[in-house]
């Protein structure tokens, strides 16, 4: 098939947007944390916790949307832990984040194994079905790509718009961005840096967990240990690529997913000329390349990684 032809195909872009969904949630979640000045390396583990929570919730008879909420709640709890350590106690964001990732991943594997001790093939749930939004799904191209998707994908797209508006236009959003740039100024306005950062990290972590839940509740229908497979780290790279801007983050994740979908198509057609492992490397290589391209242009939040202590300069 011709590559140019592929780029005009609705099915290809629909697949790209679908594959981008967990990355959109994760990237926006990480972006919120970092805009407030906190790097959250817990993302990889929090996504795994979201995966597990959402899936088990539904497996044991819960409602799908309540499963998403449960995942978000668990994510927020890990976010709270991260915030207590890095914001309130001012501990290393790198090491705490890695610790959270290890803890969340290990706990979700442990809980999964304890809830379902004697299984060989992972059992399945009925995941979210495709949602065709009336009228809108009939728009040529866009209808297929945006409005005929899993409800979680549509939720992801809405999240981007809400977060972009929130950060740019609302006083609370401006305060959040200011916390990441100049926490002293926030404090002098009578706002609490600690409170803003805590809420930001909790909200961001909840979104990451929802991104994880998408994997088990929409993309696939079963939970595997290790299924997040580096997506969290890719999200962190995508935040840099997007220069901490939510709309650019959306664009970045979709371009990224399109490349991923493209390499899958190429892989299917080219047969076994290039070993499949090299195709699987592509997302990680793309991420590093994207980082290198954007590194000079990106504007870091000034106070990223800097713990804030009241009354200290």
């Amino acid at each position, binding site marked *: 098939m011709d590559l140019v032809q592929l780029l005009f195909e609705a099915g290809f872009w629909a697949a790209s947007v679908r594959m981008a969904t967990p990355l959109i949630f994760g990237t926006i979640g990480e972006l919120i944390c970092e805009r407030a000045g906190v790097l959250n390396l817990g993302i990889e583990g929090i996504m795994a916790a979201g995966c597990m929570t959402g899936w088990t919730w539904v497996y044991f008879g819960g409602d799908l949307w309540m499963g998403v909420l449960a995942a978000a709640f668990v994510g927020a709890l890990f976010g709270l832990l991260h915030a207590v350590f890095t914001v309130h106690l001012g501990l290393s964001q790198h090491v705490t984040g890695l610790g959270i990732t*290890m803890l969340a*991943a290990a706990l979700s*594997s442990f809980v999964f194994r*304890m809830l379902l001790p004697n299984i060989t093939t992972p059992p399945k749930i009925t995941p979210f079905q495709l949602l065709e939004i009336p009228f809108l799904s009939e728009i040529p191209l866009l209808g297929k790509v945006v409005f005929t998707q899993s409800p979680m994908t549509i939720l992801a797209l809405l999240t981007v718009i809400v977060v972009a508006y929130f950060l740019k236009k609302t006083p609370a959003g401006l305060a959040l961005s200011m916390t990441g740039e100049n926490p002293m100024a926030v404090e002098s306005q009578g706002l609490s840096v600690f409170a803003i950062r805590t809420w930001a990290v909790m909200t961001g972590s909840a979104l990451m967990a929802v991104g994880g839940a998408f994997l088990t509740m929409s993309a696939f229908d079963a939970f595997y240990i290790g299924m997040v*497979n580096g997506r969290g*780290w890719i999200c962190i790279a995508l935040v840099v690529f997007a220069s901490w801007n939510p709309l650019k983050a959306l664009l970045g994740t979709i371009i990224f997913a399109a490349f991923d979908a493209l390499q899958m198509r190429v892989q299917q057609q080219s047969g076994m000329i290039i070993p499949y*492992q090299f195709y699987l490397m592509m997302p990680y290589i793309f991420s*590093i390349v994207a980082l*290198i391209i954007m590194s000079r242009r990106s504007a870091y939040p000034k106070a990223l990684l800097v713990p804030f202590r009241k009354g200290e300069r």
Partner: protein
Amino acid sequence: MRLEPRENVTLLIKAMVPISAGIISLLCCSALIIWAGASPLEACVLLIKGSLGSRFAISETLTRTIPLIFCGLAAAVAFRAKLWNIGAEGQLYAGACIATWLGTGMIDLPPWLMIPFLFAAGALAGGLLLLGPTILKTKFALDEVVTTLLLNFIVLLFVNWLVFGPWKDPMAMGWPQAAPVIDSATLGHILAKTRLHWGLAIAIIATFGVWFLMRFTTWGYEIRAVGHSQKASHFAGIPINRVIIRTALISGGLAGFAGVSELCGLKGYLTLDLSPGFGYSGIVVAMLASLHPLGVLLSSLFIAILSIGADSMSRSLNISNYIADVATAVSLLAVLLSMMLTKYTIRWR
């Protein structure tokens, strides 16, 4: 709530760090064990029995400490310079790959030359793998955490290709593994009828070597200075980028050592389960040791006891052995917390 720096930190308070971290991690895991319907006390006894209860158990635990020491040292050296090398896992496999390439028949030297040669080659591979992210850090200010993490995935896929593709051993009954290393490249066993190999001696020598380097040499001084304050180091005329690159080569090299010693001492051939995440556990080892090289010996023993003990404990109590991973992660977070409490007191108001 407010943090106030402590005036004088006694040795007793410092010694409490790993102890309190251990206790916190035990408490958290006890909660999980109770939830799973077993008795924590029994679990504790089984864990100690499984890791230290017999000659074989002790040998298994010591065997497990070897890669943990190397990876712990790798993290300890890098973190001292605030170089966040999270790529020890990938560097470990890089070392193992080079050792497989050279050690499966390409070169044959007498063992007293072959072993040091393979270790040097493995260290070079590990160091060079970390060099990329480090140069990206010094040249483009790219966060090395993300790049080293992503490299881990790339290296693992590369090894996957090697052992399923060109390096697949036709004699291995279809298992994805490379050919075994030749006899002169094999590390001998310390104890008969156990898997404990001379990698342990190399690990201990490396530990003292790193300690000496960090404590008594200019290089070590520069590494520590850059970690404390880049600005002050710059004013003192320390070439920061050169020091960071040197640190990266040492750190990556130590992780490469881990790969070579696992390959030549334990497994004998390259597989995908050569390391069940030693690179990541190494971070915990280093943090538990407060980044002190000699402390790495103790903390790697602790993590080894935890993982070997949890394996046998989980089998007899029918609890998932992921409990060891949980305990490791909790101890990392707990040690961070306790370290802070040695420097600050919390004043509630």
